[in-house]
């Protein structure tokens, strides 16, 4: 096993091994996770697109691989998936930018 890098694509398939440390918590996580992604008020396709966008925000390569596949298998296309990632990126960019109001508040306090 190569441990010279932090992320290995093959490790995604080993996700369930995490359950060995705390089986009951793993089972609860699995049940909750499956319920979250089941068809509900949002379709499975919409949920996969949300998950893809969030995967980019949390910058998880496992999640990006998994939800790129999931989006395709739910019938989304490259255009829709790229737009979803832009939504995530826009929120991420906007969340930095909105802090400029804090900067401006402090500028105001310090300035004349």
């Amino acid at each position, binding site marked *: 096993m190569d441990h010279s890098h932090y992320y290995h694509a093959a490790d995604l398939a080993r996700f369930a091994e995490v359950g060995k440390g705390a089986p009951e918590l793993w089972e609860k996580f699995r049940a909750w996770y499956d319920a979250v992604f089941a068809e509900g008020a949002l379709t499975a396709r919409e949920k996969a697109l949300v998950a893809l966008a969030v995967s980019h925000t949390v910058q998880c390569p496992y999640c990006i691989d998994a939800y790129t*596949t999931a989006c395709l298998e*739910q019938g989304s296309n490259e255009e829709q998936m790229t737009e979803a990632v832009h939504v995530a990126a826009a929120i991420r960019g906007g969340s930095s930018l909105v802090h400029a109001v804090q900067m401006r508040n402090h500028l105001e306090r310090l300035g004349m």
Partner: protein
Amino acid sequence: MRVLPTLQKQRHPLAGGAAQRRRLAELPLARSFEEALEGAGLFPLVAKGIEVLQVNVGRKCNQTCRHCHVDAGPDRTEMMPPDVVEACLHVLAATAIPTLDITGGAPELHPEFRYLVERATTLGRRVIDRCNLTVTRLLNYRWIPRFLAEHRVEVTASLPYYQGHQTDAQRGEGVFDESIAALRELNALGYGRPGSGLVLNLVTNPVGAFLPPDQRAAERDWKRELERRHGIVFDRLFTITNMPISRFLEHLDEKGQAEAYLARLQQAFNPAAASGVMCRTTISVAWDGTLHDCDFNQMLELPLGEGLPRNIREFDPARLGRRSIVLGPHCFGCTAGAGSSCGGAVA
């Protein structure tokens, strides 16, 4: 339209069925297909009669799609000889098999395609033509749409996506525009229009190494988008999983995805889909008259089980209708997710 040399023409190592079977056997699987069936209480998998005679009239095609399990293309020369066509018609006449499903290659390129259709419809059978659409745009084949309409042939046409670049990526540059023109012509003849009785179904295979989407949801999208973008209507959309054999296997190997794709199919094994697989109600006839459990087994050169009639001339509906199906790792392609058949999802 852009076409490529077939694997056979390239003398590619994966050109033959035996080589493909060897490559599939090399790919590691958590459990075999037989074990998966056993776990679902479905082993051995046994036929439930014969509802469809699927006749592959030849491997010649005007396209060279990336996912083609037949390795069909313009350079293929295998064509069903007249005596085998007669033997197929004899079986139809002598049995109560209700449906003749004609496939290829592009079946319309067979010189006796019209004869086969005319005779089968005279026998009162439902006839399905698996049409690649663009064949109807070839100069010497402009007769196809009207001929199909006149004989009330059900058209099952391939179109992987409602947008051009995905379709062309799988089927060759220029295929999408020609396919849309062909669909417009079929619509103008009444195909896909409510009340016409002329059935136009579309088939979509994923443009890549992933499972097809939910058939009903995809059908809603396709109906909306094809009508909005191109004014095209159709009856049903069939989602079909890409089978990891022939050109798609070669594509997977080229991308280093063969192992991951087969694992994905195996992981998505669905007992309900396994119970409804099409081989349980279909028999497949090759261009040379040999019988197979399905078109995929035909391409892998997997004959019917030991002791069964193996040629159309020896057809025995009673024995063939309760035969044990010959299985392999590729069968996971028909049992993944909602399942896959020539009529789309099965579960």
